[in-house]
């Protein structure tokens, strides 16, 4: 069919092809202004649409970013409020525990001080031995003894009496000193008690001071969040992303724990619900094992919620304390029961595996070997079956962190995706614009022969016109042609400016 079209003008393919070529080039030349308009118009339309779309995406991105910011700040405010509340609670505990006993402590301090003061007064030193006593004794000793014997005797008696008195006074002074030392010695425990009490007071005051500093820090953060400062938003974003990765990691570990738990109880569950029963293409025993694990995780969730360690369910958090306590006891009891069931199932699994192994050995014709330390894995499975449910129960904590940080991370991902989309749309629009320009030039390549002829004619006319202008002072292109050219140039310039 296509070859028939080729030979429509002549039997010679070269001639026919040349005729077709001439015809096509002529048609292309005649349709050149319209084709140019079509190509440039399409390019500009695509570019304009892409700009509008990009602007819409940008607005959407802005809205998402603002929403993320609001969510982040709200979450941060909530977390800081909780932290401040917790600090105040600690301060309250500190005050209730230590400072409530302060009057007693104060009385104790005052008593100790009074006692110390009294003791101190009691230890006031008596006047030491008067120096005159020694002088009197020396004088009496220095008196000449060669005179009247009666006088000598009197003097000796006086000296003896004075010396006796001196000895007695010295003994009394020594006794008094000993008494004072005893009192000072007895003061030691009182001083120590005073020191201990003061240290205790200092510790309490220091603890309160530290709490006050922490509260101040939290309050500063809270204030920053309340003012919606960028610093606070960045800090919260970084914290959320970190929390997200840590929580994800812990959840993955928990998932592996769940898989181990599943394999531990899936086989023995078939003893209860039947090994030949299927729901769809999944064994009922597998589903039952999964349900048990899920129920354990749920009970752990309720337990931690009732203990107010997590706050995933506001309804549980708003229950009164007695109700929450009952709920915690119920959840813990169910958890213990399930753990016991799992332990027994794990043990049964070991027995079943042992039985199967024996059968497999006998089917293979091998002698059944009794393993000496077979009880070790049995006990291990029993303990693992009991412990794993409790370990899985704590999954609620990373789950809460994951759920809370997921909002931030999803928001960041959406913003990133929108930004990429906007960039792609802008790039597409720019490329379409450039492509249209390239196609216009490519079009001109096909019609370059008639275009060259046209240019020569124009040049000839221009020269002729110039000559006429020289003579008549006129010869400009028509107004319409000038306007069209100006419009085209202005359009291109505008597009180029926007692109820039």
């Amino acid at each position, binding site marked *: 069919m296509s070859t028939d079209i080729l030979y429509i003008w002549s039997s010679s393919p070269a001639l026919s092809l040349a005729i077709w070529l001439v015809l096509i080039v002529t048609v292309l030349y005649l349709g050149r202004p319209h084709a140019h308009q079509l190509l440039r118009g399409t390019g500009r339309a695509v570019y304009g649409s892409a700009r509008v779309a990009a602007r819409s995406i940008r607005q959407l991105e802005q809205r998402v970013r603002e929403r993320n910011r609001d969510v982040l700040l709200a979450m941060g405010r909530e977390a800081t409020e909780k932290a401040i509340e917790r600090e105040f609670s600690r301060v309250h505990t500190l005050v209730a525990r230590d400072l409530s006993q302060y009057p007693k402590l104060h009385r104790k301090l005052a008593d100790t001080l009074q006692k110390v003061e009294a003791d101190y007064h009691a230890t006031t030193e008596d006047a030491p031995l008067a120096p005159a006593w020694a002088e009197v004794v020396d004088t009496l000793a220095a008196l000449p003894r060669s005179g009247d014997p009666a006088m000598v005797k009197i003097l000796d008696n006086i000296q003896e009496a004075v010396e006796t008195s001196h000895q007695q006074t010295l003994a009394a002074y020594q006794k008094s000193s000993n008494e004072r030392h005893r009192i000072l010695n007895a003061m030691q425990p009182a001083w120590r008690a005073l020191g201990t009490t003061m240290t205790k007071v200092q510790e309490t005051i220091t603890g309160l001071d530290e709490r006050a500093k922490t509260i101040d820090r939290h309050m500063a953060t809270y204030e920053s969040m309340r003012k919606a400062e960028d610093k606070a938003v960045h800090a919260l974003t970084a914290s959320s992303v970190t929390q997200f990765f840590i929580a994800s990691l812990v959840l993955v570990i928990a998932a592996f724990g769940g898989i181990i738990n599943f394999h531990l109880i899936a086989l023995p569950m078939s003893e209860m619900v*039947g090994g030949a029963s299927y729901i769809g293409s999944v064994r009922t025993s597998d589903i039952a094992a999964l349900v048990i694990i899920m129920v354990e995780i749920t009970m752990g969730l309720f337990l931690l919620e009732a203990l107010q360690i997590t706050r995933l369910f506001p309804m549980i958090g708003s229950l009164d304390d007695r109700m929450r306590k009952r709920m915690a006891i119920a959840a813990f009891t169910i958890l213990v029961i399930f753990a016991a069931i799992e332990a027994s199932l794990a043990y049964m699994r070991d027995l079943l595996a042992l039985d199967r192994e024996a059968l497999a050995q006998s*089917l293979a014709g091998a002698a059944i070997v009794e393993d000496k330390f077979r009880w070790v894995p049995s006990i291990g499975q029993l303990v693992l079956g009991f412990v794993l449910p409790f370990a899985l129960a704590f999954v609620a904590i990373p789950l809460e962190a994951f759920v809370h940080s997921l909002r931030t991370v999803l928001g960041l991902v959406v913003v990133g995706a929108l930004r990429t989309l906007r960039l792609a749309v802008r790039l597409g629009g720019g490329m379409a614009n450039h492509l249209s320009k390239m196609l216009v030039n490519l079009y001109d390549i096909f019609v370059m022969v008639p275009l060259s002829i046209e240019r020569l004619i124009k040049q000839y006319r221009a020269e002729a016109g110039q000559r006429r202008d020289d003579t008549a002072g006129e010869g400009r292109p028509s107004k319409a042609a000038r306007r069209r050219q100006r419009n085209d140039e202005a359009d291109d310039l505008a597009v180029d400016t926007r692109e820039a």
Partner: protein
Amino acid sequence: MGGRVCGWALRLAAGILSAAALTGCGEPVNNSRAAFVLIDISSDYAGELQKAQTLTNYLLANLESGDSLGIGFIDNSSFTERNIIARATFDHRPSVTTRQKREVRAQLDAFVQRFRVPSHHSDITGGVLLASDYLNETKAGQRYLFILSDLHEDLPPWLNRSVGVNLEAIEVIAVNVKRQRRDNNDPQAYRQRLAGWQQRVEESGGQWRVVNDLARLESAVVLR
């Protein structure tokens, strides 16, 4: 706002319920399996009884709770209850299944031990009829018929075996098809015998396979 949320919740709940109802109403998948081992005890094949034990052990190791296994032998006339050596549908409890497997194995071992005199004829069609009845009765999702024979049918003159066999949805696997002395002289006869049985099985609605080496059984026959 609350009304809209309620509406969404109701729609979601309705969707989940519909999906659950559709899933529940669907045809339940039949995952159970049934296998029947036919052992030829004619004079030409009686020496291969150990192969039957190996095959049975392989099946016992692979079948699970809810599956069925039957073992029968082919002799002068095979379409009777006495031709069944053992049969069991394994209990849904794995512990009971293990016990049943031991019993099946013990029954086959006892049969092999007390076997003395090979049969003169081999009524393979009768055995296949017996096995197909058993397999169809189990209503298992996958049905396998293992034939340990040289596939040389030698019917006594009084037996009428020109009846149709229902082998619909049964995979017939000829295991260890022993070549006879006259097959050595004329291999074409052996091939024709195999082709004849294949045609019979396929015309009866079954699928035909030959596994001559028991070591390749595991790779050739996958019990899904």
